[in-house]
Structure formats: structure tokens, C-alpha cells
């Protein structure tokens, strides 16, 4: 008899709290997915250096994305192309990613139209230490990548070097103090992805571009 009573109690309590979490989740899910979509759009616009008002509404951002960003595929991987106000291409954005120090680092890297120089870099998600590795998100760090020519390797399999000891010289970037492991991991990610962009260079000209529907 006791076991039946216990089971019944657990069943009712579980039902009650599952109901609570499910209803809160239901009520907020459209807002949460809109937030995620807006974040994604902003990051794409940022990496392609297409300006937008800081207080742009989610709807306005979706509109901008439809006008300024086209989507294509190489080898099943997504590529984006940015357009200026007249519809002329300004550059390409490639998803990049790999193993960081604590977890995966993911983001976008954009190149100029000629596929010879980096346009910008942004990170969409990472689990690096707040205040140390997480500083890869800071503008001063990301700005260092802009305009770097990556047609010639500067070392074995290296187009970009990040080091805190010596940041003078071609394609050498200033690392983050206290975040050696994160910068090393990031250097590997960027170099591998730059290499695959160069390998696929000829295919990019043959992409069929389409205006993205939302994400």
C-alpha cells in the first residue's frame, strides 16, 4: 500500500512541475528563437561589414538579411555572399570552427571578393574562460585579422600566426595574455579553414546563389 501511495505522490508532483516548465517554455519559445535568429543575422551582417542601426528591430534585420546576404553551398557546406546597396558583391562569409581549449569554438570568417584577404572574423559560440580566452570576442582582438593577406603561407601550413611574444612581422597577431591555449587552438582553426577556402577557390565562382529564407 505504501508503495502505491509513494508512486502516486511522485507521479502527481512530477506532472505538476513538468507542467510548469513546459508551459513557461511554450510561452517563451517564440521569443527565444527570435533572439537566436536575430543574433545570427547580426553576426552575419557584422562579419560581412554591412552596417545596420544599433537599435534595428528583429523584423528590420530580417529585411536587411534578405537584401544584403545570399546563400550558397560548396561540398554541402554553407557559404554566404554579402551585397552592397547596389547589389554588388562585397565579400564571402564562411562558417569556421574547431576544438578550443574547453570546448568547440565556432564562428564566421569573411574574405574580400578576390579571396586574397580576410575581411573580418566573429565568433558565434565558445566556452573559453570568461575574462581570458573569452576575450577573443573583443573588437581589438578580432580587428587584427582584418585585411590580412592569406595567399602565401608564412610558415608550414600557416597563413596567420598568433603569439604574445612577438607580434611584429607579416601576419603575426597579438595573442591574449593568460590565454595561450585558446590562442593556439584558434590559430589552428583559422589556418585550417583558410586552407580549405584556398583549396575550394575555383568552386566559389560557380556557386548558385540564393536569397536565404530566414536562417
Amino acid at each position: 500500500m505504501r508503495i502505491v501511495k509513494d508512486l502516486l505522490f511522485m507521479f502527481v508532483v512530477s506532472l505538476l512541475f513538468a507542467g510548469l516548465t513546459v508551459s513557461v517554455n511554450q510561452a517563451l519559445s517564440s521569443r527565444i528563437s527570435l533572439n537566436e535568429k536575430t543574433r545570427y543575422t547580426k553576426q552575419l551582417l557584422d562579419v560581412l561589414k554591412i552596417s545596420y542601426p544599433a537599435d534595428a528591430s528583429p523584423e528590420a534585420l530580417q529585411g536587411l538579411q534578405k537584401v544584403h546576404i545570399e546563400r550558397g553551398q560548396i561540398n554541402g557546406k554553407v557559404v554566404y555572399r554579402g551585397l552592397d546597396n547596389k547589389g554588388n558583391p562585397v565579400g564571402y562569409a564562411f562558417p569556421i570552427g574547431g576544438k578550443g581549449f574547453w570546448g568547440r569554438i565556432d564562428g564566421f570568417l569573411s574574405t574580400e571578393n578576390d579571396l586574397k584577404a580576410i575581411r573580418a572574423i566573429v565568433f558565434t559560440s565558445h566556452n573559453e574562460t570568461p575574462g581570458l580566452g573569452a576575450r577573443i570576442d573583443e573588437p581589438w582582438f578580432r580587428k587584427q585579422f582584418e585585411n590580412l593577406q592569406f595567399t602565401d603561407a608564412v610558415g608550414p601550413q600557416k597563413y596567420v600566426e598568433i603569439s604574445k611574444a612577438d607580434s611584429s612581422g607579416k601576419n603575426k597577431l597579438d595573442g591574449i595574455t593568460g590565454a595561450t591555449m585558446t590562442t593556439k587552438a584558434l590559430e589552428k582553426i583559422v589556418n585550417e579553414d583558410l586552407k580549405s577556402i584556398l583549396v575550394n577557390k575555383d568552386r566559389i565562382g560557380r556557386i548558385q546563389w540564393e536569397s536565404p529564407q530566414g536562417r
Partner: protein
Amino acid sequence: MGISARKIALDGIWGNNPIFRQVLGICSTLAVTNLVANTLVMCIGLIYTQAMSSVTTSLLRTITPYRLRIVTSTLIIAAYVIVLHNVLQAYLPEISTQLGPYVGLIITNCIILGRVEAFAGSNSPAASFLDGVASGLGYSFILLAIAIVREGLGFGTIMGYRLPFEFTHWTIMVMAPGAFFMLGIITWLCRWIDSRSQAAKAAKKK
């Protein structure tokens, strides 16, 4: 009700402080205290979860079968944390991304289960609510003290604002060892102050 509200509040914040007396919730004390802003959100999250879970556990205490009390408490705590996580994602998306897994980890914070089990299970809802808030505040003030020293010495900033003087930053303070040093120092300091005031009280009685 045998215990006065004043005693519950003082116990949670000082006399029976979760960090330096009960030594609970140390994992988050070490993990989130290198930036004051993150610490603050974590503290607010903890106070909310503790207060809500304590009240709910207390309300259900007369009908909860004794051997099911831990399962029930865990379920209650998890539900409130999931609600908090969703609300942060919906209304404060940036802070939610920054805190990453820490909000979810409130579920495993030992202070919550400790207070629910030790206090809410055998006291009235109002007393449990007060105990929850007081324990949360006791946790928060120690965490904020640690975070201010760590961010100040490690980055030369407080809440992201630069300190008015320049010095060589102690990078070790924002890494794991800095958290251990600060926790040790604060625990010693608080216990030393506490033992001195106890001794003073005892001397007065004579």
C-alpha cells in the same frame, strides 16, 4: 515556530553563512567569481532559486513521504532553474550566453539542497522563504567580495569599469588558483572576526 525572524536572517547571512561556516556551494564560488557582472547575475539566480525551492518544499513537507523527500526537492529545484534559464534566454539573451552552463549548474549547488533539506523540510513556508533569501544573501556577499578583489587585481577593472590607477595586473587572480587563495583568505578573515566578537560577548557576560 521557535526561531525568530531576526535569528533566521542573521544566521543565513553571518552566523551560519553557507560559504565560510557550512563550506557549501564552493564549486560556483571558485568558478564564476572572476568578473563581478557574472557573479551578480549568478547571485540573483541563486537567491531566487533558493527562496522559491524552500517555500515549495516547505508547503509540500506535510504530504511528502519521508523517503521521497530528496527526489521531490531535486525535482522542484530543477523546475525553477529551467524556468530561470528560459527567462534569461528570452529577456537577457546576452547575459545568458555569457553565463553559459553556470545557470544550469545552480541545480547542483549544494547550498540549495542543503538548506531545503536542513531547514525547509521542517519549518513553515514563511520561515523557509526568509531562510532561503538570507542564505542566498550570505552566499552573495562572500562571492561579490571575492569577485571584486579578483577582477580588480586581475584585470584592473570593477564591473568592466577601469580603476583610476594603473598597475601590473595579477593575471593569476582571474585563473583558478586566484579563486582558491581568495576563498581561503576570506574564510579565515570572516572566522577571525566571528571568533573575536564571540570572545568579546563571552567577556561581557562575566
